[in-house]
């Protein structure tokens, strides 16, 4: 297969297949199997190492994901921020730090699930595949941050236009075609993770409890009345 076709497959066909799967299956699962939407916490079974694995991972991945989304959404503002060297350094070092935090947490999660027989019982094959994908993704991300500086800038100039071209349904492969293999791997894994998303425990991201902060303290449901008084 020529390089051209490979790029077309990995950066045009695959993203659309994954995104289509993501939207279709996420909605389908929410409508048909809403019972299965759960964070499936294992804190009850193992509470000693839980904190040191789960908390670094979640705070790390949240910040990293938010950073990627920001660079995707507002690339110009990001470039403007990076135009002053010390601001670029602060951003890059923070990103790397949170990347490493994610990695530490993820390794902790895998070790904990492997090491504790109770938690192992509630870990499915799907979970192991997901952990492998996330581990590869995090390692590649940290390596990119280390070996291909300054990611925050070239993401804004190259990756953001590519992602927007996907969104706008006129894919421009040229933005990623010239990227190093490690970056290509990271992009492909990202789309695969998105496609795999609705089949995994990751769906709990979509049910974060935002109404809690605004709702009334107590909840009452009336069966005989249409509206609660």
């Amino acid at each position, binding site marked *: 297969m020529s390089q051209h076709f490979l790029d077309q497959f990995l950066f045009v066909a695959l993203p659309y297949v994954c995104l289509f799967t993501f939207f279709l299956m996420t909605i389908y699962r929410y409508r048909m199997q809403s*019972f299965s939407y*759960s964070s499936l916490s294992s804190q*009850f*079974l193992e509470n000693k190492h839980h904190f040191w694995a*789960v908390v670094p991972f979640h705070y790390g991945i949240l910040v990293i994901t938010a950073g990627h989304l920001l660079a995707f959404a507002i690339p110009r503002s990001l470039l403007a921020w990076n135009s002053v060297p010390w601001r670029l350094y602060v951003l890059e070092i923070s990103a790397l730090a949170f990347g490493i935090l994610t990695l530490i947490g993820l390794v902790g999660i895998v070790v904990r699930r492997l090491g504790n027989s109770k938690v192992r*019982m509630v870990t499915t094959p799907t979970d192991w595949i997901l952990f492998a994908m996330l581990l590869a993704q995090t390692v590649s991300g940290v390596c990119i941050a280390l070996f291909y500086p300054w990611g925050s800038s070239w993401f804004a100039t190259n990756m953001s236009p590519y992602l927007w071209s996907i969104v706008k349904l006129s894919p421009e492969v040229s933005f990623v075609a010239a990227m190093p293999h490690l970056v290509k791997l990271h992009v492909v894994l990202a789309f695969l993770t998105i496609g795999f998303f609705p089949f995994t425990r990751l769906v709990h991201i979509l049910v974060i*409890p935002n109404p*809690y902060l605004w709702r009334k303290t107590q909840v009452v449901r009336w069966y005989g009345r249409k509206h609660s008084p």
Partner: protein
Amino acid sequence: MNIRSQVSMVFHLDKCIGCHTCSVACKNIWTDRKGADYMWWNNVETKPGTGYPTQWEDQEQYHGGWEKKDDQPIHIKSTGKARVVPNIFHNPYMPSMDDYYEPWTYDYQNLFNAEEGPDQPIAKPISMVTGEDIKIEAGPNWDDDLGGSQIYAANDPNLAGLSDQQRLQLSSVERLVMFYLPRICNHCLNPCCVASCPSGALYKRGEDGIVLIDQKKCRAWRSCVAACPYKKTYFNWFTGKSEKCILCFPRLEAGEAPACFHSCVGRIRYLGVLLYDADRLEEVANLPDDQLVEGHRSLILNPHDPEIIRKAQSAGIPDGVIESAQQSPVYKFVMDWKIALPPHIEYRTLPMLFYVPPMSPVIANFEDGLASHAMKNLFHGIDESRIPMQYFANLFGGGHEGVVRYAMGKQLAVRWHRRAETVGDVDDSRQVFTRGGLFD
């Protein structure tokens, strides 16, 4: 006034023999499933004792219930609104399976399949979580009947405030005493579990006040498990959903009593409707500690009052429910006789399960080394009770003795009265009781 009805409960501890039939009935119907195997929606504890999960009453450890600091309004002691988001990945006050016990079964197949050998084959205990061999070190009734034990009963959080002398007496062989505390969900008026749920999966049914968990909305954030001070919401480790006592609502709706009530050998359980004023919940939940029991009672409305009946009807409460409230045994126990008290009212969840505190055993007096049944002292006064009043006050009076003393005194008076009626060798005139300081 916002009148609502609540299916409420009274457990008469003076009649409980600790047979666990209720627990078994509940287990067989509701929690005989993978992931729920360690749950006992209904459990029976020996008191003094540590209970299930171990020392659940120690809120310094579990951080359950509502907390009131000075003049501030009450807040959830574990993770309230401000702290739930940063703590959502790891709940700092989540109990773990070690606090309950690891469920086990036995390898019965080995009895049939074992190789022929010099020894009898045994059925080894195996974990119901992992299937591996297990050394059983805890169970749901681990300290059953171990009142007086230095390892278990001595760690009962309700012993707080008792003198060393009193503690010593509770564990000395000849004065050993214990009673049973059957527990289910209290279906509270101010449920901490409901208030803490980030997903809004927990709710109180408007019509009958039963507190339920919507299994489709529960996302395993585990806040309810940490928040319930009675530890009556449980985390199903297999499905990743929390579960709790549902007061057998499918049975209730079909006109049957909940299974634990239905199966109770001693008939200690009473079920009845109470009408209450939902508008005053917040005010009462914020009262000072020593006013909580009375305040809780003041929420409950008199179903015989024509004004209340009229308001209840206009609030949409069906006539049948009002009629049930008028016949409610719970109303008699809690409001007419005032001998049923809420457990640990200081958690401020306003529980709707009330307990009649148990009388200590009737003892003979010893005269010249012989047991004497002379009636003048046979029924000792409540202050000479083997279980100190302070203990019951910690359990049923929010730490305050007054309401408990009244409930105990009234029961003692009934005993005297019945003795006077049936045997006729005691004086049950009012002076007997006023002399003992029971009544004014």
